């Protein structure tokens, strides 16, 4: 079948059947001023050979830099088998199939993914994924408001140490749906959420509290105390986590006395390569009591008429194709391809392998921080315990330093002042297991040169 199914003859036949002479006449009730005109600025078409050459040249402009930036997306090793398997014809679709039950293998992969995420986060139920970590947080806030029926305020307490991009996306998605998002301040000396910032809300109607662990600066928040405060004050708890870190850290399902209510995060570290910001995928897990307010698809395991096990989409009754405007969310799909990659990645590594990735990343970051803070004009900004990221303070403006490092093919970190002007000349750095001691030495040498040049200038 041709990719565009309607031939000119088909179109003419259909128009004749409804008594319209042309496509233009079909749409003539749309005022001319509202019609799209020819797209301006589109260059002439190129042949496959020409466009291939152009894209190759553009790709080469990117170079192959050494990456020392994290800030929500991480340059982990992806075993070659992961994408070799994902791109098999049986898996290679970005979508949950509409006749889902016809694709038992696809459903089983999603089911295994859900099982792995539930296990990693210590929660009883997971969905089939969301678009990315940022939109997953927005969906979690909306879910909390639906799930917490006793709370009337729709008030969400959001520490300033939550990834600022996630906070901005949450404002964009949920801010117009009558949520009151209140920012909780963080301590300038420790980089941690100010405990008293929550206490100011004691006794008031709070729907949910967000906690990111490790926080955006890579530091460990006192998640037990914050979870307990939230539950003591009748609020739900939404955890934002890095899945790799959970190989070493206590899962959110065990934070505080009772564990959190909803867990979300960015799944990219699990087998998805860095790629100009996406496509990535979000994950979400929850307590069972909130499952009916969980957005997105959920795959269940059941028995067929003959008593044989099978997989099926479940709890669909609240999705938009059935519930219309009253659906729990307009998310009716998942990031199937990336979830498949993550499932294969986790299967290949196993729990022990993921733990080794996390421990090696932690070790490499420690070596990076030691090497860089040994340089004049570089110091560690926050002293506390952290996971595979650290905030460094330079004695020179960060942007020109990053540009000079870039010229040496090193992506040196994330400039924090774009979100936190009060942090001045600070840089968020990260090293994963893929950075070798030689890479770290190369970065230290380059940074020493760049800072010296900056001082000389």
């Amino acid at each position, binding site marked *: 079948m041709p990719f565009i199914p309607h031939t000119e003859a088909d179109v003419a036949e259909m128009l004749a059947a409804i008594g319209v002479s042309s496509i233009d006449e079909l749409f003539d009730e749309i005022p001319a001023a509202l019609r799209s005109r020819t797209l301006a600025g589109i260059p002439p078409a190129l042949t496959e050979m020409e466009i291939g050459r152009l894209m190759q040249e553009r790709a080469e402009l990117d170079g192959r830099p050494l990456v020392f930036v994290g800030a929500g997306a991480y340059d982990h090793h992806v075993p070659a088998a992961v994408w070799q398997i994902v791109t098999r014809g049986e898996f290679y679709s970005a979508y949950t199939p509409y006749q889902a039950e016809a694709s038992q293998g696809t459903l089983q992969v999603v089911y295994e993914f859900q099982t792995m995420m539930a296990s990693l986060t210590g929660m009883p139920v997971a969905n089939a994924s969301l678009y990315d970590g940022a939109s997953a947080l927005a969906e979690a806030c909306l879910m909390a408001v639906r799930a917490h*029926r*006793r709370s009337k305020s729709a008030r969400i307490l959001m520490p300033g140490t939550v990834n600022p991009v996630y906070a901005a996306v949450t404002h964009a998605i949920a801010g117009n749906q009558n949520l009151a998002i209140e920012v909780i301040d963080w301590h300038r000396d420790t980089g941690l959420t100010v405990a008293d910032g929550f206490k100011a809300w004691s006794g008031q109607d709070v729907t949910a509290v967000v906690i990111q662990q490790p926080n955006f600066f890579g530091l460990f928040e006192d998640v037990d105390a914050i979870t307990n405060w939230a539950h003591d004050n009748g609020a739900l708890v939404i955890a934002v986590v890095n899945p790799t870190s959970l190989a070493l850290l206590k899962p959110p399902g065990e934070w505080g006395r009772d564990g959190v209510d909803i867990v979300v995060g960015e799944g990219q570290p699990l087998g998805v390569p860095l790629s100009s910001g996406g496509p990535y995928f979000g994950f979400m897990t929850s307590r069972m009591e909130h499952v*009916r307010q969980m957005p997105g698809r959920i795959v269940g395991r059941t028995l067929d008429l003959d008593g044989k096990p099978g997989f099926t989409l479940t709890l669909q*009754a*609240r999705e938009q194709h*059935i*519930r219309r405007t*009253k659906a729990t969310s307009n998310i009716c799909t998942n990031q199937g391809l990336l979830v498949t990659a993550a499932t294969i990645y986790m299967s290949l590594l196993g729990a022990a392998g993921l733990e080794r990735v996390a421990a090696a990343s932690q070790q490499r970051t420690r070596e990076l921080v030691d090497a860089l803070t040994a340089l004049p004009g570089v110091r560690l900004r926050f002293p506390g315990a952290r996971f595979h990221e650290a905030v460094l303070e330079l004695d020179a403006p960060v942007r020109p330093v990053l540009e000079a490092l870039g010229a040496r093919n090193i992506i040196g970190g994330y400039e924090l002042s774009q979100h936190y002007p009060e942090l001045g000349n600070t840089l968020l750095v990260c090293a994963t297991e893929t950075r070798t001691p030689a890479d770290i030495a190369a970065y230290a040498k380059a940074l020493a040169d760049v800072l010296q040049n900056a001082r000389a200038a």
Partner: protein
Amino acid sequence: MSNIPTELKYRKSHEWVRDEGDGTVTVGISDHAQQALGDLVFVEIPEVGRELSAGEACAVVESVKAASDVYSPVSGAVTAANDALAGSPEIVNQDPYGAGWIARIRLSDPAELDGLLAASQYEEVVKAAED
């Protein structure tokens, strides 16, 4: 043909109302409604104390094929909700006019009861739906 007790009043969206004679009413969904929905898997009941207006969505009944709103037939405050439905939604299928009740409401305007359908009128609604 579904069971339509004559002593109850009905709303055309398939809720029933029993006047308890003390200023309160009990509300549920009709036998026809539970049959049409099929096996219920979840019922979301209203919060006690909630103030409802007549016609406002106050509960959700969810079967394997659909989640449907239940509309309050009258205005008033919810004085009780059937907690047993949380663990056993199938009670609505088994006994829609008895143990499967959804909420009790204190009437703020008893005259609203006069605007509801009698069993014979509701029977016409069901017949039309079944045709």
